[in-house]
């Protein structure tokens, strides 16, 4: 809002700048601090005697001879088998994103081109499904999955995450497909294409901006999920987030808390990079539902 008429006083400008800087500090400092601390030993980052040790690296110097150490990373990734957890996360994320985009684009396209009443009710049902706390769904899954003996394995979790993700994907892609003019595919239908051919040749080439946004959100859901992965996967198949929690549970081991710290940094870094590259898509995705109505 840069109004020619709107003259901001200097006090207001200063106040505004101070506010933004302090908010950014609140928002970002915890991450910077954790990143910094992950290269220290536990006695420094969680110092009983003096918090300044985390900066001066007093104990890190004594224990390792350097000011920065990657010990926590080495131990967590190999001894703590974090590499396995990240492998599982990659498998889960890749499958969840591709399957939910495949299902979501087809379904949302149909919804956006349907003029029937039931399309509205389906969208409402999706909204209600979106509101369900994941843990209540998990309490519904556990028993049948135990009985069917499909508990603990990655494919089950992937299917569950795809399903949980569908309502949001549908809404997002529905509002996106609404912005693609109907005339585009209608002309193809008149030319004798089937709906599927119209989708394949007319819609698919222009749908990528929307699909990328929806894909990002599926990715964040699958990557960040704790509730489903912690309860539906066995120890061996744990993804990163439940793995981090399992490091917390074993506090007896001196190094384990630092494993959690380094694991948190390792898990967060790729996500931040991704959002940095796709910031525009993330923001457009969050606002589609809201601003357009």
């Amino acid at each position, binding site marked *: *809002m*840069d*109004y020619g008429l*709107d003259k901001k006083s200097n006090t207001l400008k200063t106040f*505004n*700048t101070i*506010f*933004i800087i302090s*908010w*950014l500090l609140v*928002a*970002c400092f*915890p*991450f910077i*601090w954790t990143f910094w601390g992950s290269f220290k030993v536990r006695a420094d980052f*969680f110092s*009983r005697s003096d*918090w300044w040790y985390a900066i001066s690296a007093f104990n890190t110097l004594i224990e390792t001879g350097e000011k920065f150490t990657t010990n926590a990373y080495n131990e967590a990734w190999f001894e703590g088998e974090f590499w396995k957890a990240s492998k599982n996360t990659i498998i889960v994320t890749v499958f969840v994103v591709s399957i939910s985009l*495949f*299902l979501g684009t087809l*379904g949302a396209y*149909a919804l956006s*081109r349907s003029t*029937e009443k039931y399309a509205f009710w389906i969208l*409402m049902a999706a909204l209600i*499904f*979106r*509101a*369900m*706390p*994941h*843990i*209540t*769904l*998990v*309490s*519904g*899954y556990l*028993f049948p999955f*135990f009985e069917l003996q499909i508990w603990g394995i990655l494919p089950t979790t992937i*299917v569950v995450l795809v*399903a949980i993700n*569908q*309502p949001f994907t*549908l809404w997002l892609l529905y509002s996106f497909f609404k912005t693609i003019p109907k005339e585009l595919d209608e002309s193809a239908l008149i030319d004798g294409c089937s*709906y*599927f051919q119209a*989708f394949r040749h007319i819609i698919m080439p222009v749908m990528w901006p929307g699909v990328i946004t929806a894909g990002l959100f599926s990715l964040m859901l699958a*990557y*960040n999920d*704790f509730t489903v992965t912690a*309860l539906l996967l066995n120890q061996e198949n744990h993804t990163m*987030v439940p793995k981090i929690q399992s490091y*917390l549970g074993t506090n007896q081991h001196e190094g384990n808390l630092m494993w959690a*710290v380094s694991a948190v940094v390792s898990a*967060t870094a790729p996500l*931040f990079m991704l959002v940095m590259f796709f910031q525009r898509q993330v923001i457009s995705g*969050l*606002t589609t539902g*809201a601003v357009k109505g």
Partner: protein
Amino acid sequence: MPNKTFFWFFLPTGLAMILFIGLPIISTGIQSFYAQHDQVVKEVKKCDPFGCTVSIVVDNEATTKIREAKPLGKFNGFGTYIDRNHLATEEIKKFWNETETFGEFVDQVTNLPFYKALIFTLTYCIFVTPNVLLLGFIIALSLNAISRKIRGPLIFGTILPMIVTPLVGSLVLFWMIDSQGIIGANIQNLMDDPYLSLKSSKTLTWITIIIYGIWHHSPFAFVVFYAALQTVPQEPIEAAIIDGASRFQRIKHIVLPHIYPVVTFVALISLMDNFRVFEPIIGFSAEGSAQSLSWLIYDNLVNEEVILFGSAAATSMMTIIGIAILLAPVLVRTWKEFKTAR
């Protein structure tokens, strides 16, 4: 689009949602009417020269057998719903009769697990949601007044708390405010109280989790408000400036009415998300003093001995009812709009 084509397009996603969202809700509903089997006990007669004693021991073999034969447990009707760990009707009646003052009665009731969790969940919602809206709006206004050139990185910094998973977000904060972390240690020094720590006080724990909630959710409100602010028309604002309206008046009478629909949207989403608060409790290891409804379900499901399916399911059903109550006004409004649109 013809119904048949619609069906084939929608089938995969519809099937996924019915199988893995619709059915589990039904499955939860069924499970909530069952309870795990009691352990089968048998009397063992033990005789020695001084006489016979009868002792009662758990018959492990028979217990396993009955658990395998009927894995769902025994039918319990609404028994689980009204037991001590849920609505606790009996206990409340007892407290009502036994306690003398109303305060004492409330005290007793809020010590029951379900009500304790419900109160925490509601307190969390009540404090987090309005503050999220307010802080998000202020950040959006504030960033909007800053030069367009440097906004990109500032927005990136602002949305960081939102994109990490709640468990990681709460851990990152917890490590700082823990008594051995940078903020916790400094507060101890400042207050000159070496025993001051998060875990020592229930109120402090609740405040911390609520602050975490505001920190985590405000970026979402910010993003939506920021996008809405871009659509505010310029002319009325310019007219207001010429008429001598103050900045505050302009926001109150022009900007807020314009973005009002978005405010309800953000409030709704944020209320829904706050109602399922759960991961921060694990991240802050606050199980001792703060429990939410979702945490109760989780706790039942990770139970060491026997997974308490029935208990978890009953709490789940009541959580779903809670969500339904929250959603009802929106659904009714949408339905009315839909009816008038026809």
